[in-house]
């Protein structure tokens, strides 16, 4: 587990993030004292609902009565648990495996970001949950703020195996329904899906009054398409291979990329979603710092 921590919690990255505390733009229920404005003015102990036990949940919240009656593990959920409730949605589809020579894969990069954010959020007493998905939800880890939960998250990140196609739009709808309490949704994906479907799913989150941050992770080669000789492109996720002269296709490809990027930016802006394209060639800390700075700025606007 220690090695897992060290793998994702790059001290250099975390040091820089530590200097720029995450400050939510929207007013969210439950802030850490001194940091967050809360509409509930203090801790609530009001029972909210039951939910099934998930490994990593604090046993002190186990509803022993229910266990006694039904022999099932249920957790009592209280309003006071909720400071900032964040969910990190990590795309583990096959296309995230791609890495240009000498570069880390998009999935690895996404894991770095996920781990960094989780650590930071947990340290702030915010609860963080995680969803691993491809063409379906592979793992749903409810949000929690305990250090043990953090280890669970990191463990899951360390064992991600990408192997399926993406169907992000549908999954976003599922998750929007499933994540009841409004909070912060951090999406880490290459977003290789139909932009309309994507935006529709994101709108669903917004409809549920979640704050949404979308990290679109792309490899440098996917942004620049720098190939210069006849190449046979073999696709992930069941795409048919293509033999072509990349030099002749470059402009058309870049047009496609920019068109998609522009559509997403515009759609996100309209829905007040933070859309952040990330080149996995760039340093991780720079990306995070830039994002946090953006959020801080937007808060004080």
């Amino acid at each position: 587990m220690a090695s897992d921590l060290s793998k994702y919690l790059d001290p250099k990255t975390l040091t820089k993030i530590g200097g720029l505390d995450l400050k939510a733009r929207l007013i969210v229920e439950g802030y850490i004292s001194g940091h967050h404005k809360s509409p509930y003015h203090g801790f609530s102990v009001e029972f909210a609902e039951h939910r099934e036990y998930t490994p990593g949940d604090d046993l002190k919240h186990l509803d022993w009565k229910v266990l006694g009656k039904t022999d099932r593990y249920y957790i009592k959920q209280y309003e006071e648990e909720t400071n900032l409730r964040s969910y990190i949605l990590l795309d583990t589809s096959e296309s995230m495996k791609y890495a240009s020579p000498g570069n880390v894969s998009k999935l690895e990069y996404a894991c770095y970001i996920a781990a960094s954010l989780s650590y930071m959020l947990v340290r702030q007493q915010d609860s963080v949950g995680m969803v691993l998905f491809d063409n379906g939800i592979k793992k749903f880890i409810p949000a929690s703020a305990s250090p043990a939960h953090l280890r669970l998250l990191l463990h899951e990140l360390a064992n991600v195996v990408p192997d399926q196609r993406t169907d992000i739009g549908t999954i976003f709808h599922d998750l929007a329904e499933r994540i009841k309490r409004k909070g912060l949704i951090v999406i880490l994906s290459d977003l290789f899906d139909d932009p309309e479907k994507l935006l529709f799913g994101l709108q669903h989150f917004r409809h549920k009054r979640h704050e949404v941050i979308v990290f679109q992770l792309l490899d440098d080669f996917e942004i620049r398409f720098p190939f210069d000789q006849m190449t046979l492109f073999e696709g992930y996720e069941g795409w048919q291979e293509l033999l072509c002269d990349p030099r002749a296709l470059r402009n058309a490809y870049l047009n496609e990329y920019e068109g998609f990027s522009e559509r997403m930016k515009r759609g996100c802006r309209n829905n007040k979603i933070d859309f952040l394209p990330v080149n996995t060639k760039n340093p991780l800390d720079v990306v995070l710092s830039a994002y946090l700075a953006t959020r801080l700025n937007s808060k004080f606007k």
Partner: protein
Amino acid sequence: MFAWLQAFFANPAILAGASAGAIPVVIHLLNKQRFKKVVWAAMHWLWAAQKKASRRQRIEQLILLLIRILILVLLAMALARPALQEGMGLLAGRTSVYRVIVLDNSYSMGHLVGGQPLFEKAKELALQLVDKLNPGDEVDVLLVNSAAEELTPSNALKHDEVKRDIKAATISDGTTNLPRGIAAACRLINDRKSRNLRKEIIVLTDRTRSGWETGGQPKKLDTNEEEQVAKAFEDPKTKPKIWIARIAGGDNKENLVAANLEVDEKVITARVETQLTATFKNVGTQTANRVPVTLTVDGERVAREEIPVLEPLKPQNVIFHHTFADPGSHALSVQIEPDLLPNDNAAYLAVDAEDQVKVLCVDGQQRVTPMQSELDHFRQALSPSMAKEAGASRLPLYTEAISDGALPDANLDNYRLVVLGNVALIPSEKIEAIKQYVLKGGSLWIFLGDRIDPAIYNKDLGALLPSLIGEAVGSGDHEGAFEKLSDKDLDHPAISKFRNIKGLPLHELFVFRRFKLLPRPGEGKEKDSVRTVMAMENGEPVATEMRLGEGRVMLVGTTADKAWNNWAGAPGGQWVPLVNLIALDLINPDYLMRNRMVGEAFEYKLPQEIVSEARRQGLRLVTPSGEPIVMEIGVESFTAVSKPVSKAGIYTTELPGEKHPTIHFAADRNTEESDLDTIDDPEIRAYVPAAQGAPLEHGRFFETNITQDDIELTGDDYGGIEASLKKHSSGKEIWRYLVMMVLLLLVAESLLAQRFGDYTR
């Protein structure tokens, strides 16, 4: 097919390089085969791009491919040096031409047709050939007779100057050697380095047979000329083409010729009647009757004769008699009646009439008593009083006698003939002086005798002697055994007249004692020129003669007096004519050097006393047409030399000083050109092989790789010549345009490749 290509391309073989146009296609296909594999995530964008771009991309690739193929094909075409043919409508054009016009100006071109010489017609054609040239074309004109002369050197681009010089060109009195004219044209072509110029040699000639043949064989070129022709025709791509245009002379080939004029005696005596022999020929086909001929001396017609019948190919001699009233130089000519070729109707001769010809007699045994000295009988034979015995009305020879002791002080240059009679010893410095005297044209006559030591003579005078002096044979006893002179060997010109003189048999001349004359050792001109003048009946020579430089030496193996022979007292009186004939034959009159053939240079040995003055003033020769020619006087010699002359006739020069008036020179023509028989097309072709290396029965004009394909034979109408020239015109070369297109395509290819996204190329 290949011939068709040859008509358009100078190097059609290089067209094979156009197959390089397949290289871009091959590269394209190879590239399709050679690719790298990449596992790729953003396939949806790639496929979308592919769907949108594939059609455009295919068109772009096709455009680039076509441009690249075109670049290579055009490059190969440019290297093959294509040319547009004349007469191709709007695209018509011509490559630059270097045209050498070989203009035959031998005297047969003076043949009158319709009152106009053929040469004028040839000049008109030449002017048209220059006129039709484009401004960038180059032209040279060669006047060809026995020599080839460039008419307007280094003005090949100035057509007006060339035309002006053609108009001013005159006919020569030389013969022709047209293969030589073609060789000279080849030399001009070789000197011109430009490979892009089309080369044409156009020969304008009347095609008289003598211009091409000598004795049924083609005229020969020297080694240097052969090399020039071989070099010009070395490269099949750049070799010239030869057109031989026949300037037609009409059907009338009748021609009467004044072939020759000569004097019977070399030494001409003033105030004595001289016999002249003129030779006339009829080189036509019809007999001419009652042909008047005249003799002109110093500009005055002095005699007129008539040849009753002058048959074709039978030369007729006409004898004239004339007495030169004054000593000195005289100009003579004979004329025959005018005909269609007027240039050969006169023959010329320049002579000197002598008052006195001085002979120095060096006597090895001089006595006071008359007729006792060694050379007394000899001098007596030459004295004017003996003219009657010598068969002459007056003898010009005048003898001066000195003893052998006085020889060292004698100035030999004052004498035409030096006679050594039994002179035992000659100082070595005088031997050298005698040698120089002979080399410069003097004559030496040596008699032997009892005072002669053969060993000393052979050693000291070796180089001067026509024969080595061997042992003495015979006792010398007039009552004893004797040998007779042979009557049979009378070939030497000095004594050949004895054949015709009856009653003067040479076998009546006895020799009682003589030195044997043995063949000279060594080789060279002198040895080759040694001839026997007189021989004994046993065939052994008793008198031999040879040329040495300009002069001659005669050696007699016996004495000049009666000591060893009976010659001076021969019963028939042979002695006087014998001595006179030999002496006159030995003497070389100066005027011989002043009679030359056209194409040769005149020489004149200046009298010693005027050399410095002549050097100071310069010596000018005035041609028959009145133009001056400078004669060069050698630094060390006293001989003035002119350049080779091209006109027949009398030339004159004025010597400085009052005592030395006009000197005449005469240039005569070689009359082989007078035969107007022409060589026709098949005969010319018969001297040129049909293919390289093919054998020819009667020899060939050029010992090189010229074939019949290189020669075109045409008539004399300009239209026909021009049509033939056009037929072989290779048109305008357009490789420069193709190279420019290649460059433009290269630029276009770069720009398009950049535009189509092929920026990593």
